[in-house]
């Protein structure tokens, strides 16, 4: 029934994208939302930013194939479009590390099994420096300890709320299977709400 698999460790190269408040319109511009499937969105991730900035992290050949996206604060703010994490995911991103994430974006990521690790400013600065000093290094993100290890540069502590952490580790991040379990309780709650029968006596 479930699409979920356990998400415990993620390995891969990192791509660092600086800047606060990078919103979902920038991750995937609205014109690419004119679609009926998510296929092909990966090609358009950050399209407008990339056109305006030849040095954009997603334009650099060295970053192709990276699977960990390291960002600053309030990443993914703005629209609730799941097209944003879908585009990143289809580009190749499997996990994010950042100062903070907008809530809907964070939830959308969890629902796809993509962890977003929060990391304080100092620790994040050190992590970014370590990535720079070790180009091409394969990072390891460990969900249980909420930490990132850069080979040769040590480990960096992040945080992830207990609920999503457990969902990722147990493979229950796809909520649907869990929600489907309680059919009779859903009916009971529905019929106890007076508006579901238009307040008729």
């Amino acid at each position, binding site marked *: *029934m479930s699409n979920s698999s356990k998400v415990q460790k993620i390995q891969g190269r990192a791509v660092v994208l600086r*800047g*606060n*408040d990078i*919103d979902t*319109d*920038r991750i995937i*511009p*609205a*014109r690419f*939302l*004119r*679609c*009926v*499937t998510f296929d092909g969105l990966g090609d358009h991730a950050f399209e*407008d930013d990339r*056109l*305006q900035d030849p040095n954009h992290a997603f334009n650099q050949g060295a970053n192709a194939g990276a699977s960990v996206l390291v960002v600053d*604060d*309030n990443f993914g*703010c*703005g*629209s*609730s*479009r*799941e*097209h944003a994490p*879908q585009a990143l995911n289809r580009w190749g991103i499997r996990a994010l590390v950042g100062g*903070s994430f*907008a*809530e*809907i974006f964070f*939830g*959308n990521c969890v*629902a796809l099994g993509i962890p977003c690790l929060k990391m304080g400013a100092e620790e994040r600065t050190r992590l970014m420096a370590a990535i720079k000093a070790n180009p091409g290094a394969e990072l390891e993100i460990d969900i249980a300890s909420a930490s990132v290890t850069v080979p040769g540069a040590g480990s960096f502590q992040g945080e992830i*709320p*207990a*609920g999503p952490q*457990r969902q990722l580790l147990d493979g*229950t991040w*796809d*909520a*649907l299977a*869990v*929600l*489907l379990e*309680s059919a009779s*309780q*859903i009916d009971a*709650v*529905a019929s*106890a*709400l*007076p*508006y*579901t029968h*238009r*307040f*008729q*006596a």
Partner: protein
Amino acid sequence: MAASLFDKVWEAHTVRELPSGQTQLFIGLHLIHEVTSPQAFQMLEERGLKVRFPDRTFATLDHIVPTGSQVRPFADALAEEMTQHLHANCQKHGIRFFDLASGLQGIVHVIGPEQGLTQPGMTIACGDSHTSTHGAFGAIAFGIGTTQVRDVLATQCLAMAKPRLRQVRVDGDLAAGVYAKDVILAIIQRLGVKGGVGYAYEYAGTTFDRMSIEERLTVCNMSIEGGARCGYVNPDQKTVDYLRGRPHAPGDADFDRAAKWWLGMASDQGATYDDLFRMDAGAVEPMVTWGINPGQSVGVSQKIPRTAEVEDDSRAGHLEALEFMDFKEGQPISGVPIDVAFIGSCTNGRMSDLEIAADLVRGRKVHPRVKAMVVPGSMLVAIEAQKRGLDKVFQEAGFEWRAAGCSMCLAMNPDKLQGREICASSSNRNFKGRQGSPTGRTLLMSPAMVAAAAIAGEVTDVREMF
């Protein structure tokens, strides 16, 4: 024990606590549109699931709909394809679709209230971040992603972590020329675009008490721009009066019973909050955003802040905004020339918004440099406005009068900025590229301020135009 509306609604809709620590929450009303639903239906089908409560989901067409010719098939083949998908999905699953032919089509957050679907004490979800709008009725309304749209279709439930609750208290009267839009822009300016992360907002105080339902809709609409998960105003007699006689409101025989339940869901005296923020309505002047997020705003009489004045962690964003907008620190916002004026969107595309703007432009002319447009939030708003002759008032002044839709709020349709154009807009987002040109610029303000800017050809203080 005294409880808040938020707690009462949360409790009444709790199915169970999940192992993840989240709550399985029943969703009373599910609204869908063409952009975020096709993939959800596809996922449902891949799993062989049905829509669990088809009569609790309603659909409309808004984001991609052209506001010029609406003859089908649409000129844009992709827009047509999305429309057909929604139509087929609704038909297959028995979902009511407010399509163009119904005469009731409009922006999802305009038609929910208009049809009486949005009611106090409900949980509401929609695959759209501005679902917070519906909180104006004392509903708890969440914007969700497409995977969650699938969850609601399949189970009428969401797995949600309960946010904390902040009371945003504003007291006092608004000065003439200052509107609900200015209040919410001022709140976001003070608390910041991240200030609401982890919170639901309860808007309380005499300023909100005195607001009409439509004004409350404007305020709640932008809760999400301040980072809050949702925002609401407690239901009162105005809420009840607004709902009476609406197509999907309870019938006459049951209406009083409904009203009693609705009012009973309001926060009790002595309810507790995790945080409290206060603002004085008298201190709010007409607001204008100058930057690239809705928190970067100033009063119309003020100057764009100097980078040295902003907090350390906002400084990079400040510089980025100045550069993108091509503004100078310390520059007055008043007098900034505009190219486009847009009145519309789920923030300010309702009847009262159009009336205020029409009153200002009546007998005046749009500045020759400015391309100005009015886009009603729904077909019913358009019809009512036409009945009152507002379309003529706008057209005589030099505005285009267009058909209902999201239009230039996000430009997924033919309405777009060109190049570096600057748009005075009554919508809710000034992100880079939001209005269709990657380098286009947006100044958010109230519909009255947009009307004033359209006439003057530049940002101007609407209070001087009365």
